[in-house]
């Protein structure tokens, strides 16, 4: 019964990621892509909040968008898994619905 949530805006500019994380259910998946991948970085002013609010969900980041922005995978928050577009498709297929936080 899980949901795939997607977030594509930078959490430093926009509230979408925080609002998403405040509405997830245990066992949901959250995919960060486009500028949303900045939310997956460790060592930022938002890292602790993201880690805390995202504790009960699986957090993914789209590899192509992480690479485009020059984020080294060693800089990602612990527990964040990289996926490619095929993995994005799998996440959407394997959850019951997708909610896009625009």
């Amino acid at each position, binding site marked *: 019964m899980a949901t795939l949530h997607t977030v594509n805006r930078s959490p430093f500019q926009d509230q979408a990621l925080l609002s998403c994380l405040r509405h997830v259910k245990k066992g949901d998946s959250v995919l960060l*892509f486009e500028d949303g991948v900045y939310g997956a970085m460790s060592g930022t002013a938002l890292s602790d909040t993201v880690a805390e609010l995202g504790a009960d969900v699986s957090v993914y980041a789209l590899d192509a968008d992480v690479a485009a922005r020059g984020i080294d995978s060693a800089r990602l928050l612990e527990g964040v898994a990289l996926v*490619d577009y*095929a993995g994005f498709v799998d996440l959407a*297929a394997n959850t019951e619905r997708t909610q896009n936080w625009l």
Partner: protein
Amino acid sequence: MKFGIVVNEGPYTHQASDSAYNFVKAALAKGHEVSRVFFYHDGVNVGTRLTIPPQDDRQIQEQWSALAKEHELDLVICIAAAQRRGLLDENEAKRQGKDADNIAEGFRISGLGQLIEMGIEADRTITFGD
């Protein structure tokens, strides 16, 4: 599995149409069906054939047209959103007394009902926007 895709932002300005394109390609490569791609809000601007992007950049509209041809995708541009933004096909141009049209090959203009129908028929509906 049957995916329905919504694209809500215009080409180049937002990454939404690129992400949607990459998602659709990946879904098709995995053997899924993409029942429709519905272009809404500024997304309708993806479907103009009048763009001339820099030669060293991707050609967003041509990518979609080619993908539609290869996989018989149904690329639908919302008529209400298109009218506000200046996207027209030949019939609509005639009907509205406009002297030009600009829709690209492989796209068709239709009503919002096509979005709802897609949501009903698809197993998953995914929106790319901003």
